[in-house]
């Protein structure tokens, strides 16, 4: 590390620093282009970042060399920021009320969607730990992709949206308990230390929820600053500290970051979320890229059919659990279908889980399977929603037009809307 920035800049023209910048610049610019393409087609950029990781990895066609240090750390920060932002989006009250309202539906969601992953891992002979990990990968829908998708297609006002969002909340809270359990299992801790760390993790979750529910002002006052940069540094610093501490204690860094976000609410949370969003977007892209970097693309053709099968099965199970949840909220059949379809995409949590599993002793193909699986659903899920939207729109336009015709002409509408064809 160069202590003098002047000397650093001067030395930069030659040697490793210059190459660092070149590679990082190329990576970021490339990610930006990918993001642009994704948004152009109304898709989530996540799968494209994964693909970029596959291309730039050690085994891929264009191996990165010098920029790796930054990307390593960047990915860890990205994971923290993803979960911190998620926690900031929710208030503890929402979390608790969401869980209470959707408890039965959440459990059905869990059972129906975790089972295929666990079953596949066991069938492949990967062992019970891999089964637990893969169960998590197939269970949890991507809160980021789903919420953004609903907002993008303008369906926030739909009757089924609160059901979808509550299920996401339930899943996120389940992750807060699942991730410490998985971490303990992956580390191969003995029964005693595993149970201790799980109990400690649960205790921390309950304690933070309690503090967030009972003393929201206290936390806000501690973090508040009229200065944007101070608030940013404090919140991010606290999240990183909590995550680092959790990791030292063999607990889940992701959950710690999530809880930090959760314990902030109201204006502080709003302000912090807005300040952190650009950082999150940058480091989250690195996070997904990093995961892709670790995968050997040569292993993908082998696992692709399995991933495809798993994707189809778990898309169906999501629709089924969504159908069940919609029934409990007395939605129409179309609404019940929409719940499940909206929840198909998998994303950040599945990658977090797969990232945890990939660094330990589960089968080498786990990472490739998880990446391919997430890729398929992160693309197919939003497509399914938009196609369903299109179907329903044209179907409905015809229904409305025939309804109006039967009523003998629309009441006082001077112009007929042209059919744009969706």
């Amino acid at each position, binding site marked *: 590390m160069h202590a003098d920035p002047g000397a650093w800049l001067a030395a930069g023209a030659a040697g490793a620093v210059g190459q660092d910048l070149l590679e990082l610049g190329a990576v970021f610019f490339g990610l930006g282009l990918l993001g642009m393409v994704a948004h152009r087609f109304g898709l989530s950029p996540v799968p494209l970042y994964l693909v970029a990781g596959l291309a730039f990895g050690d085994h891929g066609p264009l191996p990165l060399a010098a920029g790796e240090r930054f990307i390593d750390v960047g990915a860890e920060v990205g994971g923290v920021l993803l979960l911190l932002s998620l926690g900031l989006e929710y208030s503890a009250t929402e979390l608790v009320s969401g869980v209470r309202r959707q408890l039965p539906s959440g459990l059905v969601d869990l059972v129906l969607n975790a089972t295929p992953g666990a079953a596949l891992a066991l069938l492949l002979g990967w062992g019970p730990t891999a089964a637990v990990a893969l169960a998590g990968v197939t269970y949890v829908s991507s809160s980021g992709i789903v919420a953004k998708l609903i907002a993008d297609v303008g369906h*926030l*006002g*739909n009757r089924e949206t609160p059901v979808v969002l509550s299920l996401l909340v339930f899943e996120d809270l389940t992750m807060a308990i699942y991730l410490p359990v998985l971490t303990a299992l992956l580390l191969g801790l003995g029964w005693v230390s595993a149970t201790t760390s799980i109990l400690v993790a649960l205790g921390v979750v309950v304690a933070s929820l309690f503090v967030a529910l009972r003393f929201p002002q206290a936390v806000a006052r501690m973090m508040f600053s009229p200065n944007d940069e101070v608030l940013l540094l404090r919140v991010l610093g606290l999240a990183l500290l909590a995550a680092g501490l959790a990791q030292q204690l063999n607990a889940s860094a992701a959950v710690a970051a999530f809880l930090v976000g959760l314990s902030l609410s109201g204006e502080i949370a709003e302000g912090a979320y807005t300040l952190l969003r650009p950082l999150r977007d940058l480091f989250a892209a690195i996070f997904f890229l990093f995961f892709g970097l670790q995968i050997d693309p040569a292993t993908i053709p082998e696992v692709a059919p399995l991933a495809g099968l798993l994707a189809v099965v778990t898309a169906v199970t999501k629709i089924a659990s969504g159908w069940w949840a919609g029934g409990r909220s007395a939605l129409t059949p179309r609404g019940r279908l929409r719940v499940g379809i909206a929840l198909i995409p998998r994303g950040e949590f599945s990658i977090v889980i797969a990232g945890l599993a990939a660094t330990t002793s589960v089968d080498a193909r786990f990472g490739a399977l998880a990446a391919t699986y997430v890729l398929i659903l992160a693309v197919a899920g939003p497509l399914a929603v938009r196609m369903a939207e299109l179907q329903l729109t044209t179907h*409905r336009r015809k229904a*409305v037009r025939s309804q109006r015709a039967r009523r003998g002409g629309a009441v006082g509408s001077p112009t007929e809307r042209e059919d744009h064809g969706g």
Partner: protein
Amino acid sequence: MRVEETLLPGVGISYEFRTAAGRQIGVVARRDGTTELVVYAEDDPEYVAESVMLQSDERATLVELLTAPPGPSGPPGHTQHPI
């Protein structure tokens, strides 16, 4: 007239009500300050047919228009189109 208020976790609050003519309309108030004007489908009042995002000044304009529609000699800032 009953306004239904629904919490959208992580997003905001949705308000909706049914008009005498049988249409469902509403507003989604997002946490980030933007508002969405929502019109539900004629044949499926659970499904959003049209939603329009409004910034706070646009919301104010809409409120102004709805509360007291100006007459033909409207206030400055409005462009008049003679029929």
